[in-house]
């Protein structure tokens, strides 16, 4: 699991576009403690994207890609929506599914990878919008959780169908009036984190993407738990600034305002007992490693 797998043929190295050369030279594939702090010091696994200026989804993408523990052995499954405009720019294997089908595809993929590569860790991460996760694909989302499929589902919740002009979605808040939903939503926001918990997810988090360190932690936890125990779910608020009438610079503030303790995106976390145990083991191992490294450093000094 390292850059050994992405070597450019020596005789054709000079003609490769610079973004590929940079990926080989300085991307963090194979780095054990990779995280959002690598952004700026290394080649990111996302090239330019085609999202709107200031879109919080682009921040979310950057943090998630920087935090995946095993990007060279990860396959991401996307679905129709703003996210599908970004995947062509992502240097992690990815599959575009039919709208709403993402968790069904990921189920088959994860099982196939386990059979094809029995001795190797292969992570599958679904990344889709709220329309794909909660409306059109709710059946596939829930069935994958019921079956205890071992992959992570990440929902970019922008509370409407953004790239088709602002239609009502299941995750839209009650009373919200959108460009293509002029009456205002009559029903409550679907409580998918609670549904995820009751459907068998072992790790469920709802938060915004205003804090990169938090995203790093929850993404790592979600992937590790999905790898060893069962399904995990992250619901991340990535507001569509255009559809809620904000400017490019106001996305971060919108997230900060929405994550206050009384607001609808206040941090929520559920961890099952087996998952808690796993996280404790991982933390203990990390501590041991750090102690050993410290000791080695002091001996060297």
């Amino acid at each position, binding site marked *: 699991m390292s850059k050994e797998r*992405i*070597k*450019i*043929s*020596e*005789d*054709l190295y000079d*003609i*490769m*576009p610079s973004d*590929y050369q940079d990926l080989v030279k300085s991307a963090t594939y194979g780095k054990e403690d990779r995280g959002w702090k690598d952004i700026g010091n290394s080649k990111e696994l996302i090239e*330019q994207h*085609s999202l709107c200026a200031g879109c919080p989804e682009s921040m979310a993408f950057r943090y998630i890609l920087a935090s995946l523990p095993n990007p060279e052995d990860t396959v991401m499954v996307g679905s129709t929506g703003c996210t599908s*405009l970004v995947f*062509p*720019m992502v240097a992690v294997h990815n599959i575009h599914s039919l709208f709403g089908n993402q968790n069904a595809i990921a189920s088959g993929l994860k099982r196939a990878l386990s059979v094809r590569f029995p001795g190797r860790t292969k992570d599958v991460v679904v990344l889709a919008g709220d329309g794909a996760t909660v409306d059109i694909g709710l059946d596939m989302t829930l069935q994958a959780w019921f079956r205890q499929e071992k992959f992570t589902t990440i929902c970019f919740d922008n509370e409407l169908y953004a790239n088709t002009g602002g239609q009502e979605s299941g995750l839209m808040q009650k009373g919200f009036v959108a460009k293509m939903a002029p009456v205002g939503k009559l029903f409550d926001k679907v409580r998918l984190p609670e549904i995820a918990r009751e459907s068998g997810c072992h790790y469920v988090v709802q938060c915004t993407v205003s804090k990169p360190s938090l995203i790093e932690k929850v993404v790592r936890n979600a992937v590790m738990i999905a790898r060893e125990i069962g399904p995990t779910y992250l619901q991340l608020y990535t507001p569509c600034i255009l559809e809620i009438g904000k400017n490019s610079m106001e996305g971060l503030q919108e997230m900060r305002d929405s994550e206050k303790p009384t607001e609808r995106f206040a941090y929520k976390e559920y961890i099952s007992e087996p998952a808690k145990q796993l996280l404790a083991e991982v933390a203990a191992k990390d501590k041991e490693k750090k102690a050993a490294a410290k000791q080695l450093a002091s001996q060297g000094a």
Partner: protein
Amino acid sequence: MGICLPNPGEAHINGVIVPEEKAYEEAAKQFLMAKVPTLFPGPLVLWAWNEKAAKKATAIRHLYNTLKECVQPGQTPMLIPMPDYRPKYPKINPEVEINPNHPNLTIWHNKIDCCMFIGVHCHQANLSLKIIRGGTSCYTIAMCAQAGHEDAMLSFRDASVEKIMKLADAVKRLKGSVKPRLTSAKHGA
């Protein structure tokens, strides 16, 4: 009318099955006639997946160097990679790479009138070759590692290091005996 793919030891030129030797001559002739003969190496050779891929890359570089040595003033051989098959929105730079989903853009931009695909997976080569055939007057050659491409105007099969070197030898052999075209694809060659 469809095109039958060649058997081992054969190739096809405009759908007509010919012995491989004849195809080397014709491909070399097309390269030497072209104003901008171009090689498009794909992911199977650009990335050093294994020793064989790296050797093919060396052979491709040799073919490109041979082309550069053998063309006449005014001809500009090019080597443009197709590193992967992403649609690459919002843009790609046609100066430095070819996108399988819009290969015509790179061909128009660089005025390429003869090209050879090598190391491109079958499905993407088929797509690209169809688009090129439908939208440009570029002569297409496929150095295919499998059974050949019906959408290329000239297709080899079972590509190997030896076959790439043989093509380079044919180019060397025909050096000076082929008259280059004066116009490029964009101007109606």
